[in-house]
């Protein structure tokens, strides 16, 4: 989900379990969405994207679900591994806006 203040929401999962990270996006006219992964000290890394004419898209170990009715996006990571520990954030393209609009992120922590 989105963060409030300076502290990001945290999701803690056991290694091997599935993770679900949520994002509430801001604009019902948004037509394109991206999930990024950001490890400490690094730049955001593209994970998967989805266009608004789809409601589900799968990649390698990741699935993005889009629910336009409630303006909700989720990222599912299967069989979570230690290397999945990072901050995950969504981005949306609002037609007419300059650049993408980014969420604040969720910190995913993998427990051994």
């Amino acid at each position, binding site marked *: 989900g989105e*963060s409030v*203040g*300076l502290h990001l929401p945290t999701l803690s999962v056991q290694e091997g379990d599935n993770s679900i990270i949520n994002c509430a996006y801001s604009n019902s006219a948004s*037509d*394109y969405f*991206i999930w*990024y992964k950001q490890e400490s*000290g*690094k*730049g*955001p*890394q*593209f994970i998967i*994207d989805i*266009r608004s004419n789809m409601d589900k898209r799968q990649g390698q170990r990741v699935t993005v679900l889009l629910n336009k009715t409630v303006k909700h996006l989720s990222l599912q990571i299967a069989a979570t591994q230690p290397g999945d520990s990072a901050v995950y*954030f969504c*981005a949306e*393209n609002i*037609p007419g*806006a*300059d*650049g*993408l*609009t*980014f*969420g*604040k*992120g969720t910190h995913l922590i993998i427990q051994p």
Partner: protein
Amino acid sequence: DAGITQSPRHKVTETGTPVTLRCHQTENHRYMYWYRQDPGHGLRLIHYSYGVKDTDKGEVSDGYSVSRSKTEDFLLTLESATSSQTSVYFCAISEASIANTDTQYFGPGTRLTVL
């Protein structure tokens, strides 16, 4: 980091001094962007470029200027650095415009501290 480098990677400077950050890409992408990332905020767009010598302002452009004299280089200049500009700065590139819903790829970032 999709063929994107940023320099310097870290910089400490004093209030009132000019600072220039460089973004260099080897992908020959038309669009380049500068963002800042601060705690409590998502990435915020400073300026972007849609071609050589073609630039436009983003959400938080005050106190910043940019230049793009070559496809591969996009420079961000802080005219007179202030403490509020302490941040991590990311460059991004995309092959097509956001209007065409093309993914942006990010560089490794520059951590700037203004004392």
